[in-house]
């Protein structure tokens, strides 16, 4: 018990030190005590900025050949925080950025709204925790692969090189490696999925603040929180991806909305004044140059932060980064096309903001890091070629509407489309509003990428892209449902009342009740019945047995089909990402689009065959780990194999070389 408590304290201390304080101090240095960001926004953004700060500190260490260890991490982060605090103290006497009173009241809720927000947050935690309590233990294949490289970072005191594999991106490992180093916790504990759980919640909260900032309507923001946080709270890309260890998606779904939030904040202030409707624009212009300067200054700072977070995103997940690029490119083109009459004003303002010292410093600094100090593995021609081109498989030719219905939920899809249509209609009057256009582009482009990837010439699994649709469609659903049921008295006219207020309320209750029950029952069905962990601990025990009794001269092969949590076996050896060898899923050996080696199949399925004999010799394999319930008979028949370990779910055979 004492050990458990000690581990808990170490974990939370490391979590706050690594994932909160750096971003908090950075915001303090930039904004001081300004109210330009609400407390809640500062709290959420601090985590996103901390992730990017940590990445860049570790990249700097890598470039300077500084060992990544507990003291060096602590010193690096403390120096960063001290420098940020120094800047804050230095700037205390200078003019501070501040905002209108209306901005301050944006985060002031009525008692009912506050109660609703707290209830939604509670439900989100409750549902997700109920699901994760059944799936938290280290079992998932993807998480095992990622944790190998995180543990590699801990043991080798440097950023992983991935043996040249382009499938991994360093940002997926830095958080886990750093917290592993600082806390000393085992990678076989719950700490990796718990961190992902936290990031998942932060992603949901980011959607909340983004929606509130864009639409300036608290009820839309609360509805979006409900749609993304409570309804379908378990299905991909949420808690299922947390327990499954789909790290890139989880981090991407936090950093991408955060980047949109910061871009929206950067552009909302500079584009609002000259592009406002007649009358409003003149009123704002009368306020004088001072307020414009404040807006320009705020814009520069938010754009710098947006670019910083974008680099963090590009260092974290290639698919999210690619989707972000598509959405952002469309957003910019759409914005310019929608405001083509004001293009001169827009470009002159953008010029003033972009070609400013803070923005250029972050942009050029990020590019230098990206191309010269630490370049992600996916920046190479072969990786780009695999993602670009005509779809090479049926699974990459796009999702049907039926697929999308299953992926993000029928009602959320329907309401999302409805919200998209309403938003498009409202864009006639909101064409200058960067936030409105951002939500529209986010939803529309991801839908098109998933539905018709040929339009964009991309060759990626469509279901993986479709998973990104749930976040923008949650916002659009909230917007759609709000548009229908807002202020019914005004809509119907005081005297006409074709639908009385009570009838509208009743309709709202029925529709909303239907959506709510469907969304909650989806999560309830996804919660598995109590898992059996005997197989998992047997895998870990047998792996420890082999790790103690073998060395690098020994070759090991294990089976992926029938051994529980087998991708975690390599963490016991730490002798290479592809050690031990693995017999993959049988269907993979029949994949005509991607011919693969057959030795791993032969060595377990037919160990007595001639091909197999050659394979054993070539790979120097002398130990075989299989599930005796499925793969035992073929070894028992052969005299050269010794049955040296036996438990219900794992048998180990030794073949004397």
């Amino acid at each position, binding site marked *: 018990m004492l050990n*458990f408590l000690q581990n808990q304290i170490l974990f939370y201390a490391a979590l706050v030190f690594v994932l909160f304080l750096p971003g908090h101090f950075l915001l303090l240095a930039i904004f001081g005590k300004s109210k330009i960001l609400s407390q809640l926004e500062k*709290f959420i953004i601090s985590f996103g900025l901390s992730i990017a700060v940590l990445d860049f500190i570790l990249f700097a260490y890598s470039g300077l050949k500084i060992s990544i260890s507990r003291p060096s991490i602590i010193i690096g982060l403390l120096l960063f925080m001290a420098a940020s605090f120094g800047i804050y103290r230095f700037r205390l006497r200078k003019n501070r950025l501040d905002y209108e009173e209306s901005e301050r009241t944006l985060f002031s809720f009525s008692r009912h709204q506050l109660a609703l927000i707290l209830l939604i947050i509670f439900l989100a935690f409750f549902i997700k925790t109920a699901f994760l*309590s059944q799936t938290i*233990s280290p079992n998932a294949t993807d998480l095992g692969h990622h944790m190998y490289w995180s543990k590699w970072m801990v043991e080798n005191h440097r950023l992983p090189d991935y043996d040249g594999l382009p499938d991994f991106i360093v940002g997926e490992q830095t958080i886990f490696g750093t917290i592993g180093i600082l806390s000393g916790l085992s990678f076989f504990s719950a700490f990796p999925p*718990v961190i992902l759980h936290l990031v998942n919640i932060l992603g949901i909260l980011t959607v909340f603040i983004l929606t509130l900032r864009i639409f300036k309507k608290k009820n839309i923001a609360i509805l979006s929180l409900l749609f993304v946080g409570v309804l379908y709270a378990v299905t991909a890309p949420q808690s299922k991806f947390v327990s499954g260890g789909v790290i890139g998606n989880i981090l991407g779904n936090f950093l991408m909305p955060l980047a949109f939030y910061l871009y929206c904040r950067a552009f909302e202030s500079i584009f609002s004044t000259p592009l406002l409707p007649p009358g409003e624009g003149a009123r704002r212009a009368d306020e004088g140059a001072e307020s414009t300067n404040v807006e320009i200054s705020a814009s520069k700072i938010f754009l710098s932060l947006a670019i910083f977070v974008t680099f963090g995103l590009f260092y974290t997940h290639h698919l999210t980064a690619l989707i972000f690029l598509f959405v952002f490119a469309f957003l910019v083109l759409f914005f310019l096309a929608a405001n083509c009459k004001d293009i001169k004003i827009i470009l002159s303002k953008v010029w003033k903001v972009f070609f400013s010292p803070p923005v250029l410093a972050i942009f050029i600094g990020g590019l230098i890091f990206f191309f010269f100090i630490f370049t992600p593995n996916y920046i190479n021609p072969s990786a780009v070629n695999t993602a670009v081109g005509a779809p090479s498989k049926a699974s990459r030719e796009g999702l049907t509407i039926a697929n999308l219905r299953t992926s993000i939920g029928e009602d959320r899809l329907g309401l999302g489309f409805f919200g998209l249509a309403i938003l498009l209609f409202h864009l006639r009057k909101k064409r200058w509003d960067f936030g409105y256009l951002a939500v529209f582009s986010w939803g529309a482009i991801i839908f098109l990428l998933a539905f018709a990837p040929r339009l964009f010439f991309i060759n990626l699994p469509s279901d993986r892209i479709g998973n990104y649709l749930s976040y923008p469609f949650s916002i659009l659903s909230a917007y759609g449902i709000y548009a229908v049921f807002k202020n019914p008295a005004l809509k119907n006219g005081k005297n006409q009342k074709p639908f009385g207020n009570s009838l509208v309320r009743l309709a709202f209750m029925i529709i909303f009740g239907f959506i709510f029950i469907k969304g909650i029952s989806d999560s309830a069905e996804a919660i598995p019945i109590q898992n059996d962990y005997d197989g998992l*601990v047997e895998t870990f025990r047998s792996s420890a047995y082999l790790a103690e*009794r073998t060395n690098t001269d020994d070759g090991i092969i294990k089976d992926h089909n029938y051994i529980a949590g087998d991708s975690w076996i390599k963490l016991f050896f730490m002798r290479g990402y592809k050690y031990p060898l693995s017999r993959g899923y049988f269907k993979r050996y029949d994949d005509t689009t991607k011919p693969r080696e057959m030795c791993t199949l032969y060595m377990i399925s037919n160990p007595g065959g001639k091909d197999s004999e050659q394979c054993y010799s070539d790979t120097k394999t002398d130990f075989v780990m299989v599930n005796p319930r499925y793969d035992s008979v073929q070894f028992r028949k052969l005299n050269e194999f*010794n049955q040296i370990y036996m438990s219900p779910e794992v048998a180990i055979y030794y073949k004397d070389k």
Partner: protein
Amino acid sequence: MTQQTKIIIFLIILLAVSSSYLFWVDAKNNSFDYGKDWWAVYFDEPKNLSWNFSIENHSDKNNFKYEIFDGENKISEDSAIIAKGEVRKINLDQKIGGIESKKITITVSDGMETKEIYKNL
């Protein structure tokens, strides 16, 4: 206390409770013994001709009977009481002299289930 402070504190409390609960659940799941029912038998030195083996018990059964075969012939048998969570090393090298056949087999039974390990010479 402002509304936002309330929301942030609420978030922190929920996160702490949720993650502590998940750590606790995981600690139980990851335990070799808690709620588990399995046992294993293995050679202590798999690569050489040592016959020493271990029985590792993570089940509720405690009485284990083991038999040693030289080819088809039983050459030794014994039993051991092994508590849950205990690993019992059984030193056979001192007990067994020359082996006549080309295979030595050890079978272990808990009364319900039998497992076997063997080495070919």
